[in-house]
C-alpha cells in the first residue's frame, strides 16, 4: 500500500466534500452567452475559414460592383473571348489583360463583373430558398411531430410534395404569378421571387422528416413533461424547448439546402425555365459555358469553383455553428 496524499486537515476535506453548497470560485463577472458561442466557434478552424470565405464572397458580391464597375450586361463585341490574365503566364500571345482579369465571353461581356452579378443572384436565391425550405420544413416537422392528430395528414402531405414534378410546377407558377409579380417587383424581381418560391416549396420535405423524427424522440424526454407541469403552453414548449434542441439537424439540412438551391436554380436555367437570359447567375454562367468548355475552361471553372467553395464553406460554417450553439459541446 502506498501512502496517499491526505488533505491537510479534516475540516478542509469536509468543506470540499460539500463544496457544491458554496461558491468555490470568486464570483466571475457574468459571461455573455454570445461571447461563449464566439469563443467556441473560433476554435473550429474549418468554421472560421468557412465563415471568413462566406463573408468575403458576400461582401464581394455586394460591394463588388463599386470596386469593379464594368456593367455585366455591356457588350463589347470587339473584345470578345478574352482569356483570363493568368493565361499570359504561359502564353504571352493570348488575348488577355488587366482590363478583363477573368476574360470576356463570346459577346465581349466582362466575366468578372458577370461573376459578381451572378453571385449576387445565386447567393440570394440560395439563402432565401434555403431559408424558406427550412422554415416550411421545420414548421411541418414540428407540427407533425408534436401534434399527434396532425401527424398523419402532414406526412401524407409531405408524400404529395415529394412526388410533385418540379418542372411543370415551375411552368405553372410562371404562368400564374409572373404577371402580378412583374407588375409589383419588376421582371427580374418577380422572377427571383418565383424561383426562390419554387425551389423553397419543393425542397422542404427532407427537413420536415428529420425534424419530425427528432421531435418525436424529444417529446418523450422528461424536460418536456417538466415544462408542461410548470404550465408552459404548447407554443412555448415548441419555441423554447423543442426548437433549440433540433438545431443540429436543421443546420445539416441548411447546409445541404443551400447547395441544392444553388444547383437547382442552375438546373432550371439549364433546362431553360429560369431567369431572363441576360440575368447572370453562377449556375447559368456554368451551364452556358459548358459548350465551350474545351476552349475556355475558365468559364466553367470559375463559377464552378465559386459554387463549390460557397457550399463547402457553408458546410464547415454549419459544423462550427452547431458545435458553438450546443452548450454541451461548448462547455468542453
Amino acid at each position, binding site marked *: 500500500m502506498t501512502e496517499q496524499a491526505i488533505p491537510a486537515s479534516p475540516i478542509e476535506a469536509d468543506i470540499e466534500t460539500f463544496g457544491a453548497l458554496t461558491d468555490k470560485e470568486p464570483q466571475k463577472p457574468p459571461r455573455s452567452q454570445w461571447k461563449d458561442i464566439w469563443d467556441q466557434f473560433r476554435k473550429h478552424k*474549418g468554421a472560421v475559414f468557412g465563415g471568413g470565405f462566406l463573408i468575403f464572397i458576400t461582401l464581394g458580391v455586394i460591394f463588388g460592383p463599386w470596386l469593379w464597375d464594368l456593367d455585366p450586361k455591356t457588350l463589347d463585341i470587339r473584345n470578345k473571348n478574352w482569356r483570363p490574365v493568368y493565361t499570359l503566364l504561359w502564353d504571352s500571345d493570348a488575348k488577355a489583360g488587366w482590363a478583363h482579369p477573368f476574360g470576356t465571353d463570346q459577346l465581349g461581356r466582362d466575366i468578372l463583373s458577370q461573376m459578381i452579378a451572378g453571385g449576387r443572384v445565386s447567393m440570394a436565391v440560395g439563402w432565401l430558398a434555403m431559408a424558406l425550405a427550412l422554415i416550411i420544413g421545420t414548421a411541418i416537422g414540428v407540427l407533425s411531430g408534436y401534434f399527434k392528430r396532425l401527424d398523419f395528414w402532414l406526412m*401524407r402531405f409531405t*408524400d*404529395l410534395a*415529394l*412526388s*410533385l*414534378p418540379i*418542372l*411543370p*410546377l415551375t*411552368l*405553372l407558377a*410562371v*404562368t*400564374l404569378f409572373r404577371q402580378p409579380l412583374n407588375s409589383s417587383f419588376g421582371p427580374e424581381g418577380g422572377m427571383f421571387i418565383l424561383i426562390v418560391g419554387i425551389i423553397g416549396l419543393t425542397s422542404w420535405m427532407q427537413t420536415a422528416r428529420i425534424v419530425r423524427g427528432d421531435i418525436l424522440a424529444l417529446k418523450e424526454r422528461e424536460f418536456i413533461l417538466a415544462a408542461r407541469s410548470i404550465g408552459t403552453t404548447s407554443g412555448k414548449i415548441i419555441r423554447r424547448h423543442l426548437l433549440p434542441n433540433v438545431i443540429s439537424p436543421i443546420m*445539416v439540412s441548411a447546409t*445541404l439546402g443551400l*447547395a441544392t438551391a*444553388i*444547383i437547382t436554380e*442552375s*438546373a432550371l436555367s*439549364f*433546362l431553360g425555365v429560369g431567369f431572363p437570359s441576360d440575368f447572370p447567375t453562377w*449556375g447559368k454562367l*456554368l*451551364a452556358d459555358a*459548358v459548350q465551350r*468548355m*474545351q476552349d475556355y475552361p475558365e468559364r*466553367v471553372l470559375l463559377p*464552378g469553383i465559386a*459554387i*463549390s467553395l*460557397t*457550399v*463547402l464553406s457553408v*458546410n464547415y460554417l454549419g459544423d462550427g455553428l452547431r458545435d458553438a450553439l450546443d452548450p454541451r459541446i461548448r462547455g468542453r
Partner: protein
Amino acid sequence: MLTFTFRRLILSIPTLLFISFIIFGLLQLAPGDPMAQVPLTVPPDVKQKMREALGLGAPWYVQYYKWLIQFFWIEPKIFIDYLTNTSFLLGWLPDTAFYQGELRVISWQTRSPVMDIVVQRMPQTLWVVGLSYVVGIVIAIPIGIYSAYKHYSVFDQAGTFITMIGFSIPPFFTGPLLIVIFSVYLGWLPSIYDTTHVVTDWASFKVQIFQMIMPVMVLALQTTAQISRYMRGAMLDNLNQDYVRTARAKGLREGVVVMVHVLRNSMIPVVTIIALGMPAIFGGAIITENVFKVNGIGQLLLTALFANDLPMVMTLTFIFAILIVLFNLIADVLYGLLDPRIRYD
C-alpha cells in the same frame, strides 16, 4: 407487423387518389400545348383539328375520370394478362384475357400506350441509375465508416471535402467534362449510350460496361456524397454507446467491434434512407440521362414535358408518387425489421 403493413397499404389508396387529383389539377393548369412542336408552317385550323383529335375539348373531370379508369382498371388488366400469358413466372396459368381492347392511356406524342413505353424504358434506367446507386452506396459506406472511426483525421477531413464538392457540382458540368476527357481526348469510352445493345458474350458485356461507366460515375458522385454523410453520422452516434465498450471488454478485435456491432446498428437509419432514395432510381435522372443519351424514364419525362404530352407526364408522375408512397412504407417496415426494439402494433 403484417397488420401494420396491410393497414398502411390500404390507407395509401385514398392518399394516392388525392395525389393523383392534385397532380392532374396542376398539369391542367400548367401552360403549354401539345402542338408546340408542330412547325409554324402548319396552319392554325389544322392544329385545332389535331388538338380536338387528342380529346382536348372534353371538360377536365371527364378527362380525369377517363384517366382514372384507364390507369386503375384497364392497365392492371393488361398487366395480369401479360403475367398469365407471356411472363415466364406465371405463364403456366391459363391465359386470363381480361383486356378487351378498351382504350388505354395513350401518349399524345407517340400515339401509343404510355405503359408500353415505360416498360421499354425501364431496363436502361434501372441499369444505369440503379447501378450508380449501388456503386454510390458501395463507395459511400466504407468512406462513412472510416471517417467516423477516424473522426477528425486527415481522411475524415478529406472525405468531407471531396464529398461536399461532389455534392455541389451539377451533373450538367461533370457529364460533358467526362465526355470531353474520356471520349474526345482519350477516346476510351463512348459518349452515346446504346440502348439497343444486347449483352450476349464477354465482348458485348465489356461494351456494355464501357458505355455505362461515365453516366454511372456522374450519378454515383451525388449518391456517395449524401450516403457517406449519413453513414458517418450514424456511426458516430453508435461508436460512443455502452454496448461498444461491452463488446471490447469481451476481447473482440476492433474489426469485429466496428464492423459487426457498430455497423449493424448504424445501418438501421442508413438502410431506411437508402430505401427512401429508391423511387428516384425508377424516376431516372433527367439531366444525366439527357447528357449521355441514356434514354430512360428521366429523358422520357423531360421530352414529354417539353412536348406537353399530358397523359405521359401524368402517368409518369403518378407512378413516381406510387413508388414514393410505397418506399416510404418499405422504409418504415425495414426499420421495424432491422431494429428489434421497434414493433408496430
